[in-house]
């Protein structure tokens, strides 16, 4: 199962990254490139939609953490959309649920973002 990564930016300047497939040691570099690319283009508010992710390992986690560090350097944010228990479990095991904002939907994340402004 290969990894598909696409993105779009909303009018409130949030860049939503849709990830589909398996994020593992084989495919994580692709996601990493996408995140680096977006930051280089000045997109510092990222929301990674994980709803279509079928598998996630620590390499994938590492890439998300790396992305977070990058956007933080620009006072940005990297948050996640994830409701899948098997994926959430991996964030929980590694303590990363406390590091990432995790939302039930893209709309929830945008709502939250508006309130914080």
């Amino acid at each position, binding site marked *: 199962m290969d990894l598909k990564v696409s993105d779009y930016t909303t009018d409130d300047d949030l860049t939503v990254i849709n990830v589909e497939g*398996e994020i*593992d*040691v*084989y495919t994580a570099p692709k996601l990493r490139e996408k995140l680096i690319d977006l930051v280089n283009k000045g997109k510092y508010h990222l929301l990674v939609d994980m709803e279509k992710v079928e*598998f996630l*390992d*620590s*390499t994938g*986690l*590492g890439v998300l*953490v790396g992305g*977070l*560090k990058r956007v*933080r350097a620009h006072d940005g944010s990297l948050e996640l959309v994830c409701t899948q228990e*098997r994926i959430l479990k*991996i964030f929980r*095991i*590694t*303590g*990363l*649920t*406390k*590091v990432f904002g995790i939302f039930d939907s893209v709309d929830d994340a945008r709502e939250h973002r508006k309130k914080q402004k």
Partner: protein
Amino acid sequence: MAPQIATVELTFSPLPVHVRTARLVATAVARRGGVEEALLDEVRLAVGEACSRAVEVHQQQCPAEPVRVELRDGADRFEVMVSDRVPNDDPAGEAATEVSPDLAELNGDLNLGFAVIAGLADDVDIASTPAGVEITMSWPVKKD
């Protein structure tokens, strides 16, 4: 516990793509060996983590040597041993470090892989032998 035989053994060149093969094989053999469906996700992930780690150290130190995965379908446990050929590593020490959610700590090497293995495998043993590092994990089996 009675001595267990290695029923299936997989060796592969240290390339990320073969970690996928290892996950596939481990999950299939675990399923057939009687590991409950609910645990198969954990087997898949933990074996993947151990293999990813082995691939990484082999790529750095001995890219020509294969990584080995042994699957032992025992009477009451399904056991997986992933061995690399890179000695003098200190995986147990690293594994002992608790993963802290503090962002300040994310600058260092988090060893998220070990955190995942430790969190998922029912029983984990990490042995540093003169030949290399052996990560042994096991899960209960329901025989019918």
